[in-house]
């Protein structure tokens, strides 16, 4: 007994000592609040004329310069249920990694809250020129007098270094686009000339972060101390990172926008869950709650009295129904014409499906009217292509089905044709309440048109499994899927991988590509191929709009509603914005300030 007691006791003492030795977060000193000059317009001007994307309603106006001007000093605490794995953008793997690296790093071109490309470390958006041999040259002018947090000047050499880092052996960044760069030259310190082997239309999306030269030896990338203690040209630098608990960012004294950031520090706190996060933001324990979803609207509205608001950005993604053109019994067919889906290959059925769905009702009842109904594959940003919304017309849907030979001969409420019952399965990720509710509403709506939907949900790992893991989506083993996808700020890769016939996953291409409908349209293929070879944004947009219109005719997918990237924040936090780009809620964090 004595032995055991001693052991127990020693362990306890040890534990307490060890815990006490843990580095506690340094106390950021809160400076007395001073009123400074009236705020200049805080958002970088959108240089490019674009179709306007709507930023979701925010509960409090945040971008208006207040009369007293921004107060300086103070600390904002951000709650996130996920801990980032790294703060080095070329190792980043998840959206929280991407968002938090944007506190530390800025890029040549980034994406603003409306989904538009804007210059940040570049003086203006770069100019692209096609060369005679089919290549492309993109020239950036860099902002002068920019310094990294360690005091080194930001020059063209840093752009070269960033490129080398991305292309290095241990990099975990996507090299798409970068892999076509054959050389980067520096005619002078502030001019960057990037030469591409061939025309790479989405060139604006590249260089969205710049690493400082000398961040480390690229051969030992994985073990850099820089990965957890990085510095860049962004408004913040890392002071400490307590694993599993918090990360303290303090202001970069060398930040290039004079007088900014207004705050002294930003602390990122790892919280247990969104639910607990909601009580914490209501209590004022945190100022920002990252990564909410449309399902949180009820709770958010109820908390407005406690000083909680939300900001959202249209991401360009839609919650959608993905319809399978091919026979689910056939494993990964390359051409649905050879193995058509017994029901969904018929355009009339797909049209009837869309007409029988009251999208507005779904938005009003399940999303409290806070989002827009889905109309197009390209709803927002530089390449937005608005399309006519579909009309809800139950009688029309029924007439279409009757005309196509689908009748209810046995009077069981569900139509048949040639012995095939108009009954299909719908699958989504299990455990997602909003999606499950959406499915139930859809079942009810379609039943009125004599269409039966059978809900067969699966865990997300099963739904999104790869070809090698026998993924149902990759192999085409489904009728209808419900999930979210959509283009980023540059739609090129999304449109190609989701709607081009070359992106149908088959055994021959080892299941690459995301054209799960197995949709084939020669015009769409041609428009996408042509757009890829263009540098002119307007000309590309025109081709993409052709694609968007054609998709709405052929209906490989039915867009239900537009998704938002949402974060909650306390109303005393000013200038809080969300960008649909990788920077998410950290976009414009240099402009944040706390209203006393």
């Amino acid at each position, binding site marked *: *007994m004595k*032995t*055991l007691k001693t052991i*127990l006791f020693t*362990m*306890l003492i*040890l*534990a307490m000592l*060890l*815990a*006490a*030795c*843990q580095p*506690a*977060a*340094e*106390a950021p000193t809160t400076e007395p609040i001073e009123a400074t000059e009236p705020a200049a317009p805080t958002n970088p001007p959108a240089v490019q004329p674009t179709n306007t994307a709507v930023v979701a309603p925010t509960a409090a106006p945040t971008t208006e310069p207040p009369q007293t001007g921004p107060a300086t000093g103070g*600390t904002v605490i951000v709650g996130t249920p996920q*801990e980032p*794995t*790294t703060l080095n953008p070329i*190792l980043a*793997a998840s959206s929280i990694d991407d968002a938090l690296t944007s506190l530390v790093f800025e890029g040549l071109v980034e994406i603003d809250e409306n989904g538009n490309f804007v210059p940040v470390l570049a003086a203006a958006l770069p100019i692209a020129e096609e060369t005679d041999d089919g290549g492309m040259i993109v020239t950036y002018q860099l902002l002068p007098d920019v310094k990294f947090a360690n005091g080194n000047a930001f020059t063209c050499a840093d752009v070269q270094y960033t490129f080398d880092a991305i292309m290095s*052996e*241990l990099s*975990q960044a*996507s*090299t*798409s*686009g970068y*892999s076509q760069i054959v050389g980067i030259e520096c005619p002078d310190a502030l001019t960057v000339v990037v030469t591409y082997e061939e025309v790479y239309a989405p060139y604006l999306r590249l260089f969205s972060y710049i690493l400082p030269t000398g961040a480390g030896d690229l051969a030992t990338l*994985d*073990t850099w101390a820089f*990965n957890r203690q990085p510095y860049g040209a962004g408004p913040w630098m890392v002071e400490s990172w*307590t*694993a*599993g*608990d*918090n990360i303290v960012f303090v202001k970069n004294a060398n930040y290039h926008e004079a007088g900014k950031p207004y705050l002294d520090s930003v*602390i990122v*706190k*790892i*919280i*247990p*869950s969104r639910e*607990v996060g909601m*009580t914490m933001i209501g*209590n004022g*324990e945190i100022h920002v709650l990252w990564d909410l979803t449309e399902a949180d609207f009820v709770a958010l509205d109820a908390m407005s009295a406690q000083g909680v608001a939300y900001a959202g950005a249209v991401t360009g993604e839609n919650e959608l129904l993905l319809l399978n053109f091919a026979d689910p019994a056939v494993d990964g067919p390359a051409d649905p014409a050879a193995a058509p889906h017994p029901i969904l290959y018929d355009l009339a059925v797909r049209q009837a499906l869309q007409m029988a769905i009251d999208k507005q009702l779904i938005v009003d009842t399940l999303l409290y009217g806070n989002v827009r109904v889905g109309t197009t594959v390209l709803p927002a940003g530089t390449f937005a292509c608005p399309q006519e919304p579909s009309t809800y017309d139950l009688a029309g849907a029924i007439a279409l089905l009757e005309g196509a030979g689908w009748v209810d001969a046995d009077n069981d409420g569900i139509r048949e044709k040639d012995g095939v019952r108009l009954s299909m399965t719908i699958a989504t990720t299990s455990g997602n309440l909003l999606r499950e509710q959406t499915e139930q509403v859809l079942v009810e709506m379609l039943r009125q048109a004599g269409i039966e939907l059978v809900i067969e949900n699966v865990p*997300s*790992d099963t739904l*999104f*499994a*790869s070809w090698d893991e026998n993924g149902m989506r990759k192999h085409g083993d489904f009728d209808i899927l419900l999930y979210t996808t959509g283009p*980023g700020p540059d739609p090129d*890769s*999304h449109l190609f*991988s*989701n709607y081009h016939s070359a992106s149908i996953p088959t055994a021959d291409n080892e299941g*690459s590509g995301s054209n799960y409908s197995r949709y084939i349209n020669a015009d769409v293929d041609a428009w996408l191929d042509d757009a890829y070879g263009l540098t002119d944004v307007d000309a590309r947009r025109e081709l993409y709009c052709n694609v968007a219109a054609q998709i709405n005719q052929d209906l490989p997918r039915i867009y239900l509603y537009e998704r938002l990237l949402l974060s909650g924040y306390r109303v005393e936090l000013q200038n809080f914005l969300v960008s649909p780009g990788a920077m998410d809620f950290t976009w414009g964090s240099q402009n944040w300030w706390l209203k006393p």
Partner: protein
Amino acid sequence: MTQYILRRALQAILTLLVISVLIFGLISSVPGGIMSAYSENPDFTQEDLARLREKYGLNDPVPVRYAKWLLNVLQGDWGNSFTSKRPALQEISDRLPNTLLLMGSMFLVTLAIAIPLGIYSALKQYTFFDHLLTTVALAGQSLPTFWFGLLLIIIFSVLLKTPDGKPLLPSAGMMTLGQPFNLLDRLRHLILPVSMLAVISAASYMRYMRSSMLDVIHKDYVRTARGKGLPEKMVISRHALRNALIPIVTLLGLDLPNLFGGALFTETIFAWPGIGRLFFDSAMKTDYPVLMAVLMVYSFLIVASNLLVDLVYTVLDPRITLD
């Protein structure tokens, strides 16, 4: 005795090997995995994906990967976390003090509640107090941890406030941000998670203590002690309690690995940066070097504590000999 320990150690090594094969096999057969974060992203080219698979060593068949892992571990290299790139053992050692603090406090509180109450309940068998205690214990043992934790948060962090409108007790984390280390603050953060764990485990310890005490006080040697004219206090503490504690020591010994393993639910609910949460996060990301390290250390501690309990028995109870 030495021979016995040697034999058990050999068995332990074999057991651990089998465990490692099983766990490795299980983790490898989980769908998704580290690559799913990339393969869904249309910006990642086939070349990017191939390069990443190579970097993570996922191109080898599972048995080869296992063999490589085992060889490295035998040389003391547990590998680097897939996600944070830091050594798996460093990830563990960063969080170990937090878990030891949480679980150690929990054990102390549990014993401080359970042992006196268990004894009292046994001595006053079938009184009102005994009935009350056993009922409360049964209720405590039946509480779902997850639900109970949320209930504590709702009561103490949402409904109850300090006079200046702040929550009475913090709902998450182990320190108030932006303040230097402060013992009082640390204790405040400990109250909710420790209460959640202690209420539930004290309930079961109390029931064991009660029944084991009941068992003992009707034994002949206790009657003898009373017959000798010893005061009742002495009878209970010297003769009854020592024997009644044997099963409790077994339980404690078998619970010891939890000092390391932490409490998955508690750490997840209260954002306590310990091993339980590390395990949960790594499992969600299929970060197998960290998962393997946590599970193997945990398995080792379970095997070791079983052996320890058997050895402690011989000390506590001279009737037991090990061969």
